[in-house]
């Protein structure tokens, strides 16, 4: 009896596959072809949107929305082909969408977010580069020497992160040491002029200034400070240093370098130390 019951079940399955198999296969083909089409649409849409010079984050968002809509349509088409009621499909999609939106709305404030967006220049630990993409588990960064680094999001959340895009301006330091016998006032004036006459140097949040930072072992340290736009920081900094060196040379201001005085004594005469006479051995 049991054998007969099992045999009948298998017979029913066989009949079902024979009658509905073609429908299943077609639905599967619709799904597979649809996924391939979605992948191609993703690539083409990204290329198209990049021509409009949009932000990377906007491109990713638009791309993801279009692909999700296409995926839903393809799944709905496949289910409809299987014989499911269109009304039921629409209700399921609606309910799933509501549930997803509700979960995001409720739990989003609780989810720790990354302190940057795609396209920002950030420094995480020793790594400095531009963020190319973020996923649930890791973040893809491209360093300025062309390396692509995948950083676990857990490391970012638990480490110091410097985001260079948060503020529009950044301060440049031009520190230069001059010899003690040089004209400090002239050196300060030259350095300040160099900073002021550069079109990229801003007057806000603060005007360019030169400070005497310290009287060190080998030099008097001057510190030039000025503000520039974040995007122009690196090139401006390098060019200000270059101009400082050239202009100091032209004006006769000697830049100090570490040096050591060596006194060489000939013969038996040695200097007295603390009043004690010393003898050569």
């Amino acid at each position, binding site marked *: 009896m049991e054998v007969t019951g099992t045999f009948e079940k298998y017979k029913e399955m066989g009949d079902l596959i024979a009658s509905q198999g073609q429908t299943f296969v077609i639905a599967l083909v619709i799904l597979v072809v649809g996924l391939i089409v979605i992948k191609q649409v993703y690539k083409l849409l990204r290329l198209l949107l990049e021509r409009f010079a949009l932000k990377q984050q906007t491109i990713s968002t638009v791309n993801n929305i279009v692909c999700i809509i296409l995926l839903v349509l393809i799944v709905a088409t496949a289910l409809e082909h299987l014989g499911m009621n269109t009304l039921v499909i629409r209700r399921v999609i609606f309910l799933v969408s509501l549930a997803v939106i509700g979960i995001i709305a409720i739990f989003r404030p609780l989810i720790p977010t990354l302190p940057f967006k795609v396209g920002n220049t950030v420094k995480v630990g020793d790594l400095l580069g531009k963020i190319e993409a973020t996923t649930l588990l890791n973040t893809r960064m491209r360093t300025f020497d062309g390396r692509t680094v995948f950083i676990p999001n857990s490391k970012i959340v638990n480490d110091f992160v410097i985001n260079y895009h948060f503020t529009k301006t950044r301060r440049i330091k031009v520190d230069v040491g001059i010899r003690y016998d040089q004209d400090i006032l002239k050196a300060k004036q030259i350095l300040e*002029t160099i900073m*002021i*006459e*550069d*079109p*990229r140097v801003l*007057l806000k949040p603060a*005007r360019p200034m030169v400070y005497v930072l310290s009287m060190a072992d080998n030099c008097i340290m001057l510190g030039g400070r000025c503000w520039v736009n974040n995007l*122009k920081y690196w*090139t*401006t900094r390098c*060019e200000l240093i*270059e*101009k400082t060196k*050239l*202009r100091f040379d*032209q004006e006769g201001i000697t830049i100090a370098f570490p040096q050591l005085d060596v006194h060489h004594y000939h013969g038996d005469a040695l200097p007295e130390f603390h009043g004690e006479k010393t003898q050569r051995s």
Partner: protein
Amino acid sequence: MKVSEALKVIDDGWVKKPKGFRVHFQKQENSEWVTEYSPGEQENALDSDVVAWRLAWKLAEASNSNTPDNADGAFVNIYVVDDSGNPIKYYASNQFEVFNRRDI
């Protein structure tokens, strides 16, 4: 006088702060000397005189190596000007410099 007014007087009078830089050069077209700028006058000027002087030097080197004097395409009287068209000093020597100087 308020400090802000004094600073404005200083900014206008003490150090000249150009808004941009262009490379001025002349070249021969159809036996006539034509003055041009790079970037062009319709484009945004460069914001760095170092970059502008470097461009000027490279233009001069390229012109010297590729074309004979006064032939079509040779660049002469190459120097950097500010947004008002006034020549500016070469930052490396603090003197007015002209690459490929020619009397035209």
